[in-house]
């Protein structure tokens, strides 16, 4: 038993954290994310009222009360940008978590059950044949606008990708000696999955969850931008850009602030994902050059 225990691959979290601490790009991305999370939590302390309409100061330049100026309804752009952090982060993290939970559960099942696996594969084929953003737009518009709707609408097209990834990893892990050994000594189903199969999938799942988070943040902005996301009242970066369209030629900065914030957030998450995948796949770092 002890021999089999030691053959189980250790969770990659320990060395991963040590590696990440040494990397400047990762430190920078994490710092940026932490700042955004803090801004989202303490939005009422940092910024003024994002909903207050002040028609007298429409499209006004930066001033003491509104350091990034005011939009076409005279609302404080800085306050809206700070509150907009909440929607992006909430959608990004929730979609990553939902995708991981459902993707891993269905993927492990598909990897272990022969018939179930075939059915799941055909279903994911079909779902992935529908362009993700169209599926999300259709879901969001049909289910009526709301934060939860947006999260579900974006998560559903993301799940098949995770399912296929997890299944392919499980198929690989299943044939490894430590798993066949565990099966042969009669390890029960759940213990087998928990102790021997899940640890092997963790690395790729973590990377995929990071990418899902990044694409969910973009997707939620797209939905708000097209006017099918959460209510336009609620401050969101995509919604701010949609508002800025009408005044784009006169006040392009109104488009710039949310656009740059959105891009930086997605960039930070993507870089984290890239570094994670480099760390977990050491093959990539030692390649010969021409």
């Amino acid at each position, binding site marked *: 038993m002890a021999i089999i225990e030691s053959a189980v691959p250790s969770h990659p979290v320990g060395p991963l954290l040590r590696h990440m601490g040494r990397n400047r790009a990762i430190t920078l991305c994490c710092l940026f994310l932490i700042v955004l999370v803090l801004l989202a939590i303490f939005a009422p302390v940092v910024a003024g009222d994002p909903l207050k309409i002040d028609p007298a100061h429409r499209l006004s330049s930066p001033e003491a009360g509104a350091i990034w100026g005011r939009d076409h309804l005279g609302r404080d752009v800085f306050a809206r940008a700070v509150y907009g952090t909440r929607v992006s982060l909430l959608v990004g993290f929730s979609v990553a978590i939902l995708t991981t939970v459902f993707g891993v559960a269905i993927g492990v099942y598909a990897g272990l059950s022969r018939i179930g696996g075939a059915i799941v594969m055909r*279903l994911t084929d079909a779902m*992935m044949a529908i362009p993700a953003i169209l599926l999300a737009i259709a879901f969001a518009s049909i289910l009526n606008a709301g934060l939860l709707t947006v999260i579900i609408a974006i998560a559903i097209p993301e799940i098949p990708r995770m399912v296929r990834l997890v299944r392919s990893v499980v198929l690989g892990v299943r044939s490894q000696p430590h798993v066949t050994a565990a099966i042969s000594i009669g390890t029960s189903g759940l213990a087998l999955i928990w102790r021997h199969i899940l640890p092997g999938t963790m690395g790729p799942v973590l990377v995929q969850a990071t990418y899902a988070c990044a694409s969910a943040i973009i997707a939620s902005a797209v939905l708000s931008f097209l006017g099918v996301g959460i209510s336009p009242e609620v401050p969101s970066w995509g919604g701010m850009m949609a508002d800025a369209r009408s005044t784009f030629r006169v006040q392009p900065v109104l488009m710039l602030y949310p*656009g740059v914030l959105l891009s930086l957030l997605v960039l930070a998450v993507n870089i984290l994902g890239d570094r994670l995948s480099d760390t977990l796949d050491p093959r990539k770092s030692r390649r010969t050059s021409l």
Partner: protein
Amino acid sequence: MLTYLAGRIASAVPIVLLVAIFIFSLVNLTPGDPAVLLAGDNATPAQVEVIRERLHLDQPLPTRFVVWAGNALRLDLGESIYSNQPVTKLIAQRLEPTFVLAIATLILTVVIAVPLGVIAAWKVNTWIDRGIMAFAVLSFSVPVFVIGYLLAYVFAVQLKWLPVQGYVPLADGILATLRSVALPAMALALVFAALIARVTRASMLEVLSENHIRTARAKGLSTRRILVIHALKNAGVPVITVIGIGFATLIGGVVVTESVFNIPGIGRLTVDAITRRDYPVVQGVILFFSVLLILINIAVDMSYALFDPRVKG
């Protein structure tokens, strides 16, 4: 080759059927009565009843699906509730701008991405490689509508080189058309190129470490010849695969870009139909895009045989 093609098409049939079921249930299992919704606030019960009958909403769901799918097979996707025009006609009318935009994007993407990927692989682990990869992550992270507005501001509002918005049909001269799709195609291509450049680099690195490359170098062939003739041709399969997979992203991007640049294509048709809750059009357009995507992926599979003689199926 032909049997392989036939096999691929046969295996696509159940997928298309599943997609059709998905789309149909998505639109029809929605909470609320579509007939009431469509009739508007001031409709009399009689008017609601007329709409219900016209859309066969009084029939059971499976019956309605069989009717819809049967008609779809005969290229009849029903009529728009908003404009009363056949959905296939609406799609056909708006095919040109979307098609031109997609082709222009694809050409731009390959022209930008493949050389960048090859150079990055050739100069791997130098500042050139890191620079190209940083550019790739950056343009992959900036949402297409942000890039779109940025380009529109610089090249249309400030420099006035290109039109800010709109589309000029091919019938009015190809140059004018190209000018009108230049900015949207550029915005889309930047996002798409990031993906392709990364895969080209990875795939080239894989090939460059193989024995035949070492042989070619030992023979004293020029670097350019090795890169293009010996490496790129072998690195082609994964690149083409990703171009195929990327089509899904491209279609999503087209929907957004058409809204940014006010291009009257299928993307705009979709967004307008969704905001108007014009369900027959929504169903029709999503089915159209999905079938298109499946066909493209079959074409991608077929192209493997051209690059890799081992693939015969």
